[in-house]
């Protein structure tokens, strides 16, 4: 087995895993005791501009936070994504009412690699298309937290600390997402990448084992 100390090693581990073991493998690799900010920064900085822009255009969602920056796409298998919460942008979206409970079109596993946010999970007693939500759990996810979330779980993130960053591993699409044509330009995506690289540089150098919060243990 490869030692998981770079993003490339994470990719190799994920290539070797089966669909049945995908969640547990994700949590295992994301729990590794390495300097994740440095590992992600090194990988992101090495991705060619054209490749970064082409891949990020496929996943970038306007009008919400975090900004989603593609680190790696393994078509039909998984994607690695850096989530970067820009605090001022988040607050602007929040004032406009765009930060609301939602679900994703993919399962994911994530590790908070810097900062923190408040995370609210909801029980849906209705349908996906007509949800009836009640709060089930509220927690603060801090750097080092590792968790998984199935695609059809409604959740919401609030009050991210400035420059909160998380590394996310996404499953293949489970449904068709709502998407408008992207108006963000390649230049703007590259600028967002450079801001994220600077923010990764500013994170403290730590190498701690991941911790799975209580709320996520039911999905392992």
């Amino acid at each position, binding site marked *: 087995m490869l030692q998981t100390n770079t993003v490339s090693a994470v990719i190799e581990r994920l290539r070797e895993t089966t669909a049945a073991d995908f969640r547990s493998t994700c949590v295992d690799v994301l729990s590794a005791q390495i300097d994740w900010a440095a590992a992600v920064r090194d990988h992101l900085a090495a991705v060619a501009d054209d490749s970064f822009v082409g891949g990020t255009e496929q996943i970038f969602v306007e009008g919400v936070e975090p900004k989603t920056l593609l680190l790696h796409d393994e078509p039909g298998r998984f994607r690695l994504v850096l989530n970067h919460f820009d605090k001022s942008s988040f607050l602007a979206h929040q004032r406009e009412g765009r*930060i*609301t409970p939602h679900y994703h079109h993919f399962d994911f596993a994530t590790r908070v690699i810097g900062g923190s946010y408040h995370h609210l999970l909801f029980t849906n007693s209705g349908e996906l298309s007509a949800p009836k939500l*009640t709060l089930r759990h509220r927690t603060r996810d801090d750097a080092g937290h590792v968790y998984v979330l199935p695609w059809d779980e409604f959740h919401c993130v*609030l*009050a991210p600390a400035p420059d909160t960053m998380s590394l996310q591993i996404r499953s293949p699409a489970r449904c068709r997402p709502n998407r408008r044509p992207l108006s963000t330009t390649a230049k703007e995506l590259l600028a967002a990448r450079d801001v994220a690289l600077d923010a990764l540089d500013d994170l403290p150098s730590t190498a701690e084992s991941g911790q799975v919060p209580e709320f996520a243990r039911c999905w392992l």
Partner: protein
Amino acid sequence: MKTDLDVDAEVLLEALNDGDKANALMAERGWTEEDLVARAEALNKSLVESMASVNVV
């Protein structure tokens, strides 16, 4: 999320996650524990009601 809360959502969430911050906030505002819980419920309600449509990202 638009709310009519009389406290910043981040301040409220931090207090709900930390007993010391909760006590400090209640003392500062002259709230009882019931007052704090009422704000938490108002925040939850505003989040759910702010969903104009189902958001899939």
